């Protein structure tokens, strides 16, 4: 079966490679249509069609089916819908029915479908690096387990926090059978929060945050709109209070104190650069100020001094927080337990527990501890471990001391890895028992108490892999299919807690919905230990050198998806750099060190060092160096190592993609050495400001106003554009008139839309060298502009895509009619008619047209399986651009016509709008009265970018509103 699958898929790949046609992918499930090109006479090459032998009833070739499942790209466990076309999942989208994520899906989630087709996945079990059968692998593991028992050496499982009930039950069964112990360690941990709650509330728990309830919000280095905990859920909640309309009651006020410029900070109403060493004093000061205003009578932490600017901001924040008691929230991403204790104290005083954050039904992700990993490393080093099973973590890369772990693991009797793909830890394993990709397996997730989310396969396994739960159960002596196991666990632990009567009915309904919420036993919010705040010590002065701020970026997170080209090419929302990390410095530090962008610097601490290109980051706290983690992986594959993805010119050489900073991440201070070399960053945007050089004038591209002014005048900051004269009467759109509105108040720059667009529209990945030459192919990009003081700038994001102008300048200039206007207001780009003069791109005021400079290789046949068969793969020499997802429009029309009804514009949701967790993008038919798109057109905040040149865009923006309460 698996063999056959691969055959069929490879046949398809060959075909795709030969002719880049996409129509022939029919029904991969049961043997498939595979089209082969062979022979060549006067006619075009003869194509063969091999029909499926046994096509099941209900399966219709050429139609997409959607499965509800759970995204497994990070522990947040957002609900996802997998689009399956002819047996292949080709797209993940947010599941609106999911209780947490409610419809959005982040960049990494969107990209994770491509991980399924990663050629670095294991294709079969391995023993000593050689492919073996499952029977052989199981025998070897069982022998080692028995031998460990006999020789008195321990059996250990190193795992992340089990994602759900199924995984936990399988783990328990295994542990029970072999008397083993599990070391639970999470690469992206939130231990300080867990510990702090143990100290303040007597319970080691991670609260669930309800940003929707928070009208005043203060963040300390918590990138909750970027990559912190559950960004999709948080963005959804946060955005509820961010888009003012006239009937809107209150816009939230958000202050962020942070060292690096994070996407969250960039979206805050007030952002104050704050070095890490000032974080605890600042939290203490805020606590004391809030205590003054709320009448806290208990003991207080000692006074600490913070920079003056921060102190002023903290006073303002304290005023507002206290005034919004019960609707206020303070969050911190700090890994310092004391800081978190102070934050808990402040939240307690503000009455936030039970209102804006909840311990009663806590979040259940990332419960592990580093101590568990160090204890295990010590045990390993002492040679006490007979069998080590590693599941879902990669400490040989991202552990706090990866080299120690690697050395220790060598002393284990046998290391068994359950990793689905190559990684640094699997490289140490004697036996690899590869797991499935999430889209191939039955599993579940429990991101929070009472929230159960199902993972169901969207395709039969591509390779000879086995779900991790099946492996653990097999070794526990209770072999069961993952499906049966999952059903069993759910019958016992979920079904029993619902009111449903029939399990089968409950099960199919749950599968269709994707997630179930059950009554979780309320644990109560716990009692706050009033003595805790006073136990906090004020920190000593920081050491010399730079304070490290190594963070999880929106694209790379902890590096688990480093081999995903979609994420490598995704520009960081803030730095706009792709393909590798860079060391960011505050402008004043850069000036002092004589750094310019691209200058190589060596960061070192202890014995470890890393070389990175420098980057000057406005708004970064002086005395810090910030860089993204997750790069510089050695065992992740060709993409992570940044091998060229496009044919290079003979004179161009490619360099590696970023540096691994995990070894430096626990250092207190970093020495920075400026090296002689340069390595230009591959940035998708090189001009950071809307202020022109030479004139100092600001371009009216991104309109802003303050909430206060907005309340006085809803059109504030958005003066009506002068209406110019036209030579032409214009055309009437009688049927649909497609249009889009983007709310700049809601756009957080998270870039989910960008990846969604890439995945939906087969946008080519071009690689580092090409991005450096400004040749990225993004149809939809998120422009990021700074304004004001470079020490502490204001930031704004603006998604920019084809504006589908009614008077499109690109259309007039195309000599061959390759781009013309449709009767429904679309600016159509006909790839097959394009001869590639690029005149249209030159004449585009928004510069949203992208040219295929090369045949952007679709050489990795496996990756090609992700290509959307509904969208043609463009050949070289043609222009391409955003089509408003015309394939979705016409598919929806076909559905409507088949069903004999007329299409409603609001039925069509383009990929970008679908993915947006904040709901910033509204798409629809202007002629459909009362539709969101038609209503958006009446919004007083609506404006067209560059309205003065009279091109009449169909994409319009809503003014960004900042809450200037202070």
């Amino acid at each position: 079966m698996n063999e056959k699958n691969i055959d069929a898929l490879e046949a398809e790949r060959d075909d795709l490679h030969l002719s880049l046609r996409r129509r022939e992918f029919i029904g991969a499930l049961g043997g498939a249509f595979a089209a082969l090109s062979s022979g060549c006479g006067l006619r075009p090459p003869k194509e063969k069609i091999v029909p499926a032998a046994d096509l099941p009833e209900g399966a219709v070739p050429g139609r997409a089916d959607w499965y509800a499942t759970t995204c497994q790209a990070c522990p947040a466990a957002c609900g996802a819908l997998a689009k399956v076309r002819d047996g292949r999942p080709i797209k993940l989208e947010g599941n609106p029915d999911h209780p947490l994520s409610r419809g959005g899906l982040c960049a990494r989630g969107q990209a994770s479908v491509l991980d399924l087709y990663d050629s670095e996945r294991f294709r079969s079990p391995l023993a000593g690096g050689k492919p073996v059968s499952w029977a052989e692998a199981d025998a070897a593991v069982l022998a080692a387990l028995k031998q460990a028992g006999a020789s008195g050496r321990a059996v250990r499982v190193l795992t992340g926090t089990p994602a759900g009930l199924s995984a936990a039950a399988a783990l328990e069964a295994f542990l029970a059978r072999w008397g083993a112990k599990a070391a639970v360690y999470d690469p992206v941990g939130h231990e300080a929060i867990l510990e702090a709650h143990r100290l303040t509330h007597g319970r080691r728990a991670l609260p669930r945050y309800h940003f929707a309830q928070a009208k005043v919000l203060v963040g300390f280095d918590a990138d909750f709109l970027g990559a912190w905990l559950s960004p999709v859920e948080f963005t959804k909640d946060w955005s509820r209070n961010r888009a003012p309309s006239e009937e809107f009651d209150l816009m939230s006020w958000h202050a962020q104190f942070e060292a690096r410029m994070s996407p969250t900070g960039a979206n805050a109403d007030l952002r104050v650069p704050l070095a890490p060493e000032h974080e605890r004093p600042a939290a203490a000061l805020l606590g004391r100020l809030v205590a003054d205003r709320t009448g806290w009578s208990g003991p207080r932490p000692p006074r600490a001094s913070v920079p003056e600017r921060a102190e002023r901001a903290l006073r303002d924040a304290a005023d507002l927080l206290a005034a919004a008691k019960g609707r206020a929230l303070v969050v911190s991403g700090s890994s310092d337990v004391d800081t978190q204790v102070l934050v808990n104290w402040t939240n307690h005083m503000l009455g936030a527990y039970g209102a804006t954050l909840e311990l009663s039904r806590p979040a259940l992700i990332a419960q592990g501890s580093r101590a568990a990993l160090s204890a295990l490393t010590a045990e390993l080093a002492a040679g006490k471990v007979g069998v080590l099973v590693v599941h879902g973590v990669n400490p040989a890369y991202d552990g706090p001391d990866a080299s120690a772990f690697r050395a220790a693991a060598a002393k284990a009797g046998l290391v068994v890895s359950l990793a689905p793909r190559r990684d640094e830890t699997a490289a140490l394993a004697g036996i690899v028992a590869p797991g499935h990709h999430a889209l191939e397996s039955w599993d579940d997730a429990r991101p929070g108490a009472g929230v159960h989310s199902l993972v169901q396969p969207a395709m039969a396994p591509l390779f000879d892999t086995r779900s991790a739960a099946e492996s653990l159960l097999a070794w526990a002596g209770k072999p069961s299919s993952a499906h049966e196991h999952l059903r069993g666990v759910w019958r016992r632990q979920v079904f029993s807690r619902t009111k449903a009567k029939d399990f089968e009915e409950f099960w199919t309904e749950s599968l269709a919905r994707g997630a179930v919420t059950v009554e979780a036993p309320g644990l109560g919010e716990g009692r706050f230990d009033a003595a805790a705040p006073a136990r906090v010590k004020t920190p000593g002065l920081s050491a010399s050198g730079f304070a490290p701020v190594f963070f999880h970026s929106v694209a790379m997170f902890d590096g688990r998806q480093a081999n995903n080209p979609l994420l490598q090419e995704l520009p960081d929302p803030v730095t706009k750099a792709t393909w590798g990390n860079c060391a960011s410095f505050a402008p004043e530090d850069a000036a002092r060190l004589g750094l310019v962008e691209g200058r190589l610097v060596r960061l070192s601490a202890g014995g470890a060092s890393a070389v990175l290109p420098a980057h000057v980051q406005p708004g970064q706290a002086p005395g810090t160096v910030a860089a993204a983690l997750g790069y510089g992986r050695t065992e992740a594959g060709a993409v992570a190592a940044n091998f060229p993805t496009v044919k290079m010119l003979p004179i161009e050489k490619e360099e590696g993609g970023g540096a691994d900073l995990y070894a430096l991440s626990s250092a207190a201070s970093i020495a920075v050495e400026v090296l002689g070399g340069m390595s230009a960053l591959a940035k998708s945007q090189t001009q950071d400001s809307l202020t022109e050089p030479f004139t100092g004038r600001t371009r009216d591209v991104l309109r802003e106003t303050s909430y206060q002014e907005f309340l006085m005048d809803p059109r504030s900051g958005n003066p009506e554009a002068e209406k110019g004269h036209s030579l032409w009467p214009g055309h009437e759109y009688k049927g649909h008139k497609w249009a889009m509105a983007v709310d700049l108040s809601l756009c957080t720059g998270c870039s989910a839309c960008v990846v969604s667009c890439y995945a939906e529209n087969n946008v080519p990945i071009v690689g580092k060298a090409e991005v450096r030459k400004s040749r990225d192919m993004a149809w939809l990009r998120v422009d990021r502009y700074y304004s004001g003081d470079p020490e502490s700038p204001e930031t704004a994001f603006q998604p920019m895509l084809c504006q589908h102008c009614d008077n499109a300048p690109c259309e007039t200039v195309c000599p061959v009619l390759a781009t013309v206007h449709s009767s429904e207001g679309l600016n159509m780009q006909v790839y097959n008619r394009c001869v590639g003069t690029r005149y249209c791109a030159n004449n585009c005021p928004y510069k949203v047209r992208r040219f295929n400079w090369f045949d952007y290789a679709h050489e990795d046949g496996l990756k090609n399986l992700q290509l959307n068969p509904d969208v043609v793969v463009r050949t070289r020499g043609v222009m391409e651009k955003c089509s408003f997802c015309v394939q979705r429009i016409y598919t929806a029309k076909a559905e409507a016509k088949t069903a004999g009804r007329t299409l409603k514009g609001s039925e069509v949701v383009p990929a970008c709008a679908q993915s947006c967790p904040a709901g910033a993008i509204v798409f629809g038919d202007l002629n459909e009265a009362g539709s969101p798109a038609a209503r958006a057109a009446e919004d007083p905040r609506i404006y067209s970018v560059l309205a003065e040149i009279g091109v009449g865009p169909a994409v319009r923006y809503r003014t960004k509103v900042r809450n200037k309460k202070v």
Partner: protein
Amino acid sequence: MKRFTLFAALVFLSGAAGAAEKAAAPSPFQRSAALFQSKCAKCHTVGRGDRVGPDLKGVTERRTREWLSGFIRKPADYLDKDPEAKKLLEKFNGVRMDVPGLSSADADGLIDYLETASAGGAAGGTEESALAEDAPEERITLPEEGRRLWVPGLAGAFLLAAGAALAWRTAGGGPAAVLAVAALGSLYWSAGGRARHHLLGDQQGYEPAQPVAFSHKTHAGTLGVACLYCHHGAEKSDVAGVPSTNICMNCHGAVRKAAGQAGPSPEIAKVVAAWERRADPKGPRLEWVRIHSLPGFVHFSHRVHVNNEVRCQECHGPVQTMERMRQASSLSMGWCVNCHRLAPGAAPTHWKRAGGPLDCAACHW
């Protein structure tokens, strides 16, 4: 096992999606008529003769209601045991009726429908194979590469001829002959010669040999199997699809010899072999040669056209007369656009809508 559950989920989901789309409730009779169209009409007619199965006109008079209801619900039982049914099975080449999942209410409704239809109450006009015109394929036209080009062609011929005459007088025979030949060529082209020459890449008339000598003439013509019976994707999906082997086996599970032949047909044997060894990756596979092939940058939706009552033959030609399948139309863009341009008055009356979109993006994504 895994696959089964996956399909179960798939079937469930597609069913759920379908249920959600159902419009206002139709009358019971309408529902039965629709049921007949979807479940029965591919093999049976009412008053249009035997197809794969018998003509059902007047069947309610021939059989009892109970017998019919039982047969509809559990055809297998009857085909195995009931003598009447066994006789029919023999008559219709051993093709076993297999319609799963009909309730007794469904069966009653169907019998009511058959009664009415036999009496002529429900015109058979909506029947799948009924064509509103006698030969819609005759409206297939050659691609008009040079629409209205005969005027400039003729003018060119005239000018060239005049030039030739002048050259004859002033420069002699050689130059005049060249111009005269050019004039003749132009005349030929404008007088219709242009229609006789295919442009490069025009596949019209392509009629390759297939691995199995499948005859559309026999199946669609003589036996009158509805097009959508095998190419069922055409009404639900953009892709019509080459039928999967299990569809062949619906009939050829029993039928092993061609009409009028004594022994088993070697052609059918190929299909049977492909079916029986379908699980074997090295087993024989049916590698059909693709005939209708649009370039990758063109999207054609079968379901939109089929649901607009555009007949299969209007594009694919008189398939029911083709022993070997051939491409009847050029499938060029101009050919597509000629129909899309038809105004409501000019379009065939049986189409639900006339005047298809002329936007590039309607086909080129």
